């Protein structure tokens, strides 16, 4: 087991070097020049040279890469072109909002997706199953931004029952933001009215972001349960007279969930990418909205560092998923 973890950790090094190289190459070698993009085509040569020097673009390439890597290792990714604020600090301040949204979306996807997958598998080839299959296909095919707009129109404009912007009503913000995960903060302060308000703000964005993972989890659960239902040990369990509910819980679901766990891990990239769209629609003050704002203001320092940091987090989370999966499944550990 230790060898497995060490091997996976070592594999992280080439990926990290490659990732930074990839982003570095984008910045410096592809056609187009950030200095021109910042200043526009009609900049004076003096201004142009000044901006290039400020970005370190006048140094030889290998020196630029070393400078960039040195900064990265010190946790310094530079400053925003627009606000001149420290990029890493800004990222750290907004990231909890994105985590909270992603976790809520995943909670929604798992608690609805797994039971639906189980039900459609048990009623295979009935109208329930067909309805579920069509529904999950539509769920995969709806873009987040369209679903988000429709949810916002239905539940915030046409029937105004839920808030559709921000994380909390300012009037409710009476508890201290220690972790900046507002659900946790409200719980620590035992502020249940605040907690309710935070939860209400989470509903629409979490549904918008969680629908695609829900559909995928439902499809995988269905396929996996169908595989397991036909196994010998399930027939044995039924033959020895176990009640159906016990067969489903103890024998079917437990064995069917392994592939589902992997798929849940694979959804993290989807959630991080989708967060940009969801946060844009619901004015959610997370990392996604921050990157979107950077795109509209052409703040390349923020775009490049935001993408790099999200990719790093994605890589590390994938590693954690791999390792925990190995802990769950002895067959992987020993291969």
């Amino acid at each position, binding site marked *: 087991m230790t060898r497995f973890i060490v091997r996976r950790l070592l*594999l992280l090094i*080439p*990926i990290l070097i*490659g*990732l930074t190289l*990839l*982003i570095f190459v*984008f*910045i410096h070698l*592809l*056609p*187009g020049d*950030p200095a021109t*993009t910042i200043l526009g085509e009609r900049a004076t040569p003096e201004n142009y040279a000044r901006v290039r020097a400020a970005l370190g673009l006048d140094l030889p390439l290998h020196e630029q890469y070393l400078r960039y890597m040195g900064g990265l290792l010190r946790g310094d990714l530079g400053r925003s072109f627009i606000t001149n604020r420290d990029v890493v600090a800004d990222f750290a301040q907004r990231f909890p909002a994105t985590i909270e949204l992603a976790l809520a979306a995943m909670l929604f996807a798992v608690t609805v997706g797994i039971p639906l997958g189980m039900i459609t598998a048990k009623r295979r080839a009935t109208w329930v199953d067909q309805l579920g299959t069509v529904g999950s*296909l*539509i769920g*995969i*095919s*709806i*873009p*987040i*931004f*369209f679903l988000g*707009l*429709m949810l*916002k*129109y239905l539940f915030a*404009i*046409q029937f105004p029952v839920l808030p559709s912007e921000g994380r909390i009503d300012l009037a409710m913000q009476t508890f201290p933001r220690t972790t900046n995960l507002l659900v946790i903060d409200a719980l620590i302060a035992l502020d249940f009215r605040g907690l309710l308000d935070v939860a209400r703000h989470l509903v629409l964005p979490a549904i918008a972001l969680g629908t695609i993972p829900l559909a995928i989890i439902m499809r995988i659960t269905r396929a996996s349960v169908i595989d397991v239902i036909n196994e010998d040990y399930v027939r044995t369990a039924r033959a020895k007279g176990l009640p159906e509910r016990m067969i489903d819980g103890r024998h079917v679901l437990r064995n069917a969930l392994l592939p589902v766990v992997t798929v849940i891990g694979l959804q993290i*990239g*989807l959630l*991080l*990418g*989708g967060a*940009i*769209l969801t946060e*844009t*629609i619901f004015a959610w003050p997370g990392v996604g909205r921050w*990157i*979107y704002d950077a*795109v*509209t203001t*052409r703040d*390349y320092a923020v*775009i*490049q560092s935001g*993408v790099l940091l*999200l*990719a790093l987090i*994605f*890589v590390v989370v*994938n590693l954690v998923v791999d390792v925990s999966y190995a802990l769950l499944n002895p067959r992987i550990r020993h291969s």
Partner: protein
Amino acid sequence: MTAAAATAPAEERSIGLWRDAFHRLRRHPGAITGGAMVLMMVLAAVFAPQLATHDPVRGDLANSYIPPLTGDHLFGTNVQGQDVFSRIVYGARLTLGIAVMSVTIGVLVGVFFGALAGYFRGWVDGLIMRMVDIMLSVPGLLLAIAVVAWLGRGVVQIAIAIALINIPIFARILRGSLLALREADYVIAARAVGVRGPALLLRHMLPNAMGPLIVQATLALGTAVIDAAALGFLGLGPPDPRTPEWGVMLADTYRFLSRAPYLAFFPGIAIVITVLGFNLLGDALRESLDPRLRR
């Protein structure tokens, strides 16, 4: 004689598989529905000039916010008085164009590297697959945003950005198929009678590795449509803001949602129909090409 004798059974079998798959596809309800949806959008794209009732770009401010089914405005008009139906029809052109371009680049480049990795193995394989790991370690939409932000806005740039998401996926799939095929009886037989090098790869292995690639390409077309629209929605669409692009159209409606929800509805539905079509078709293809399901 040796090479010909070895080739014959393999080719006969591959034709059999395709014909069999096509027969099953024609009776598959998902394939028919999905095919019809995709066909509808392809026809809209091809005959956009004939179908459009108005100029998709020129607006008429005197006629803004006309609700759907009024006069000759089937889907109504937007803030600038542009006809929504005409914009959607022309948008199909742009969206399908980007999708086809990006998936074609993704398949060609991905197949090239996947074939190198799967055929040569050793350090070539190791190097290519590490690169694939790195590219897959950036969430797709994020990669596309970064690429378009740096390359500048434009249709070709969007296609390249989405192609970059696809390249590692196709490379990995093809490599996997090739590794499995190395142990297939007819490949071992071909090698035993002296077929070597490119001939073995191109004539015996690649044709038999096409199935998973075709399925993935179909599904990738759907994802490309969503990604292209997402870039447009985020303000990274075509440089001319008047361009009829579905994602841009949705972004434009964002501020007018309470006043004119139909403006968001029609481009959104166009995206859903196109993507659902490709997904249905991809699923049906997967089932039809799966040798385990052959009767």
